[in-house]
């Protein structure tokens, strides 16, 4: 039987999760190692976000478990197929996040707080892809960034890094 832990979200919802799944979070892993994890583990993450985090962790977990089990047996071909599956899953996951940026940012903060490096990098890459090659005005609109520069200041920055602003 797998060891289960109960995670408690900031809005008091309980999530029963396998140890292996949540140990991907360095923060929780430390709590468990320190013995601070008796009973429910309270987390500063909302249930909606936590559910999304766990969705990610479970997906990652599947991959590692399968790879462990059958050392060399058919690994390469299966790995290739598996990689395709994961790609497909990740694309769907990304599309959802792009459509709802609030979830994206909640997840970014949660992955940082829970110390989930793989998820954090994945999300940072996602945001970077959204930004890459876009004009400043487009980026501001996308993320509701208010331009607080005076026209003079803006001109000075453009002049300073000329090449960066060439189309």
């Amino acid at each position, binding site marked *: 039987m797998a060891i289960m832990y109960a995670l408690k979200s900031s809005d008091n919802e309980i999530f029963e999760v396998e140890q292996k799944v949540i140990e991907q979070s360095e923060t929780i892993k430390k709590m468990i190692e320190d013995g601070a994890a008796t009973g429910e583990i309270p987390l500063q993450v909302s249930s909606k976000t936590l559910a999304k985090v766990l969705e990610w962790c479970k997906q990652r977990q599947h991959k590692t478990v399968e790879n462990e089990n059958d050392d060399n047996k058919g690994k390469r071909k299966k790995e290739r197929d598996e990689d395709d599956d994961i790609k497909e899953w990740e694309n769907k996951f990304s599309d959802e996040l792009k459509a709802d940026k609030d979830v994206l940012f*909640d997840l970014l903060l949660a992955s940082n707080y829970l110390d989930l490096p793989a998820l954090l990098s994945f999300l940072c890459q996602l945001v970077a892809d959204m930004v890459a090659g876009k004009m400043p005005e487009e980026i501001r609109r996308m993320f509701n960034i208010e331009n607080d520069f005076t026209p003079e200041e803006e001109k000075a920055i453009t002049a300073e890094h000329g090449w960066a602003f*060439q189309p």
Partner: protein
Amino acid sequence: MDRESSGRKVGNEVKEDRISGLSDSILCHILSFLPTKYAVATSILSSRWKLVWTSIANFDFDDRLCLEYSRTEDLTNDASTKFENFVNRVLVLSNSVNINKFTLTCCKLRYPACLNSWLFTAIMRNVREIQLDLYDVELPECLCTCKTLEVLSLRSIFVIKIPSSGMCFPSVKILFVELLSPKNSVTEKLFSSCPVLEELTIIAHFDCHDPVTNFLILSSTLKTLTIGINVQGSIYNRHNFMISAPNLKCLYIQDDTLLSYTVDELHPSCEVMIDIFRKGLEYFSTPNIQQFLRGVGKTKILDLSANTMMALEIILTKDWPTFPSVTLLEVDVGSSLWRLLLVLLDRFPNLEVFIFQKELREPAILEHGLYRPLCVPSCLLSNVKNIEMCKFTGEKEELDLIEYCLKNGEVLETMRVVSGKMTLQKKLKLCQKLLSLERGSKTCKIEFL
């Protein structure tokens, strides 16, 4: 920790700027995934963003990211100068103590000294990874002796002077090189001079008029070696590979010609994958191939692509050598070889795991049906424990083969059949069919996915 969106998107209310509220370290992480041009351009978004980029630890300079490149073949001198000034300024203004990754893609450098000074800056800041895509440069010596550099990727025509100590890139574990008509001065020395190299990828493009090239790879630390050879033109140049890497775990060769490979001392558990295209067939020489196969055949794990199988079948016909060491064989089987699978199995007397996947492009040939040798392959009778068939579609020739293996596989433990895309109904029907087949081994399990 997080702020839920409930009640915030009411009416025409101004939406919250959440990205600017992220910590500097997360923003820097995001900017690290961008070409530096775009990372620096975020400085104009708002005052919050003005200096964020100055802490990035990954630099990616690419002179193709401006319109002037697409208008002309090369950058104009003016654009080239602007690019060089940009890189200079960014490196001066950036305040990250350590540089994680430095990437430079540049069609033309007006002042080669620039490269030296940029690399020197990166090296002074303990750079861990460098990727260069340049044309015709001489790599500075400081790069060859850099102690923090662990990952190096070179896609360029480059000249390199191996330091007189004979040691180059003292900490590089992962080396990727893409070479155009490489010179022997590089190929004979470089790959044997890196003292801690673990992963080496060599992609080489040859012109048919290139002189004979010798690749010498002598390394006791190397674990993964990938070789990809492309030859332009109709005549094949000659290239020789001499590989002696006793701790190699994975050898992957993609080479149309397999002209001359001498492979020494492979570790028995090394996994060998060979992929060759058919177009090089006329350049194969049977003795060379046999010599090569004898070299790699000492390993336990062999993976051959469909093209390789086809090519080998045509060249070797009945002269397939025997591979007594191989215990795991993975093959992609084209239609013409499918019927000969059992004959092939006979060449692997100690096989334990057999994985195959069908690559059917000319299904008509299948009319011949499965060729059943007079004697059951000995490995099937006494050694093969696992068989896996991928991309199963339920056709007769597949069922024939499964039936044969199940019936004769006397020590078979698992027969795993991974189905391709099919309806659930068909799947159930096939599953029933598979389970009803006679099994030579009482303990054999059938897994159907």
